[in-house]
């Protein structure tokens, strides 16, 4: 059985047949999941809006404050529904994550965010105005009455303030000025903000008061969302961590700032992960245990070993160089769609920028023999070409070709990149690297007419 560190000290790069000595690849994504989820979310949204409309009447609208109260109800319903969607987007439901990928889900979460936040803010303002008009008092006085005397409104107000604060702090300009761990801890309080706001909807919403069935359905929706988070965001990662009990066995220095971390675990043959995927890794060492960081695996797991390769850029990744063997590791994942499953054409070209080689290296292992891959490794200096011997050997076994583009950006242009690739149109284009690298290569490829369906990328947030 091949192991990562052999007695002769030679690193074995000839991967045996995947089926017998490595773990299973990740399950294939099911495209119909996306369509089903989209339709379900749409139906739920329409139904929620209709709940608000059917609870209204003409006499109510004509009365003082009626219009403001109606709009306040509608914005509250719509905003809360979208807030639940926000939670679901990042609850890492496996069937959805396999189709969209964690990075696209997080991106959708960020792009959707302004909507529930502004709808709920509008809800607060409109209902305060509406109630004030109905009671013929000033808005500020009415706000005090609402918060002070209405059932469940004090907790809802605290939840609202917390939600707005979290939203504010998540604006990119502000987020970038705060330490990532502090921002993250504060962001997780959104669960609390939502929990605090649940009761006032049932107690006060016209769609819910005296409508036990609607209350039940709304409660079921919240329960399902909470269940999703508990099961997939927390439960599944904890179960996998406990099952595999990964710990550090070796920290190998690949170059001045790059290390490979070899982990050992049990029952890794049961860990279904494809080359090109990543985990969120939590190293249980002092000063590191409260942070989880995403890194791609740099080789398909060979039970009982698992490897990741990391470039030291910030405090955390630099600290990884000094990881003590025996350090336990908690995992979340595997995540990512930068895998063989994404292929829609017969052949592939894999383009790695700098440390992007890690995803390319593990993805390469999953490509079948004789698949003639073209691999391009881009690095700003020779030191940056980590894992290149492994990549070369793996590519050679697949009857493919490796091109190394080394040199500073001023001297090496990416414009002619695709000239290196014969029959580009018959290939899937896999690109891994920093955001700017990926964007530049995608631009070159698109200009040459490569279809979007053939482009797959893994952006390394450095």
């Amino acid at each position, binding site marked *: 059985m091949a192991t990562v560190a052999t007695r002769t000290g030679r690193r074995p790069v000839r991967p045996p047949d995947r089926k017998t000595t490595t773990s299973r690849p990740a399950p294939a994504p099911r495209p119909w999941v996306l369509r089903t989820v989209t339709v379900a979310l*749409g139906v*739920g949204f329409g139904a929620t809006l209709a709940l608000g*409309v059917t609870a209204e009447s003409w*006499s*109510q609208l004509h*009365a*003082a404050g009626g219009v403001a109260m109606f709009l306040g109800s509608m914005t509250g319903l719509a905003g809360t529904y979208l807030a639940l969607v926000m939670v679901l987007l990042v609850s890492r439901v496996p069937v959805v994550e396999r189709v969209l990928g964690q990075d696209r889900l997080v991106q959708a979460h960020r792009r959707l965010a302004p909507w529930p936040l502004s709808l709920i803010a509008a809800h607060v303002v409109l209902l305060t105005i509406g109630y004030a008009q109905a009671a013929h008092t000033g808005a500020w006085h009415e706000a005090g009455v609402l918060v002070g005397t209405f*059932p469940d409104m004090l907790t809802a107000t605290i939840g609202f303030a917390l939600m707005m604060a979290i939203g504010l702090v998540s604006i990119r300009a502000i987020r970038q000025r705060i330490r990532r761990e502090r921002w993250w801890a504060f962001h997780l309080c959104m669960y609390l903000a939502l929990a605090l706001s649940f009761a006032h909807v049932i107690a006060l919403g*016209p769609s819910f*008061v005296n409508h036990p069935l609607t209350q039940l359905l709304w409660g079921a929706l919240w329960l399902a969302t909470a269940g999703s988070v508990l099961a997939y965001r927390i439960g599944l990662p904890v179960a996998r961590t406990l099952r595999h009990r990964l710990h550090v066995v070796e920290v190998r220095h690949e170059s001045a700032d790059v290390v490979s971390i070899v982990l050992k675990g049990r029952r890794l043959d049961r860990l279904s992960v494809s080359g090109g995927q990543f985990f969120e890794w939590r190293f249980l060492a002092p000063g590191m245990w409260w942070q989880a960081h995403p890194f791609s695996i740099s080789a398909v797991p060979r039970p009982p070993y698992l490897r990741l390769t990391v470039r030291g850029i910030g405090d955390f990744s630099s600290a990884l160089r000094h990881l003590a063997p025996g350090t336990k590791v908690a995992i979340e994942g595997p995540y990512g769609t930068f895998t063989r499953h994404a292929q829609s054409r017969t052949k592939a070209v894999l383009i790695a920028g700098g440390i992007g080689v890690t995803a390319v290296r593990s993805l390469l292992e999953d490509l079948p023999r004789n698949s003639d891959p073209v691999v391009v490794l881009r690095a700003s200096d020779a030191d940056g070409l980590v894992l290149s011997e492994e990549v070369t050997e793996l590519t050679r076994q697949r009857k493919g070709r490796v091109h190394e583009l080394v040199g500073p950006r001023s001297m090496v242009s990416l414009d002619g990149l695709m000239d290196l690739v014969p029959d580009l149109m018959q290939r899937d284009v896999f690109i891994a690297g920093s955001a700017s690298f990926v964007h530049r290569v995608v631009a070159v490829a698109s200009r040459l007419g490569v279809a979007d369906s053939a482009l797959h990328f893994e952006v390394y947030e450095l």
Partner: protein
Amino acid sequence: MRHRAALAASTAAGFAAILALHAGAGPSTAVVAPTGSTSTTTQGAQPPSGTTRSAVGSSEQYGYGVLSVKVTVRGSRITDVSVSTLQTAESYSQSIAQQVIPILRNEVLAAQSTAVNGISGATYTTQAYLQSLQSALDALRA
């Protein structure tokens, strides 16, 4: 994008489904519309004019409390509506009820039926009041 179309279509479908369900279930718990829905006026068997009779309506439990009214009818005219039971969940509902009930009483006496405007911010109080009143009127007619 294809997904946008699917989202829009499914939202419309969900919206329509709830509207259909709501219409099918009947406006049983909806606000009484001014053009009259389930309520009827005091028509039917007329007692001899000049007789004053009264009846207490059903106890209506609404989200915020319990309300029942007593109606006094002279001949075919509603001459008075008063509160028989009023228990509210909390103080705000109490104050709403106290503000709203006199207004409702005036409107009922003016309209001589339960077909009156709802009062914004007191939807459920209004509804309970009118339902209790209607049951009292039905009892008187029977």
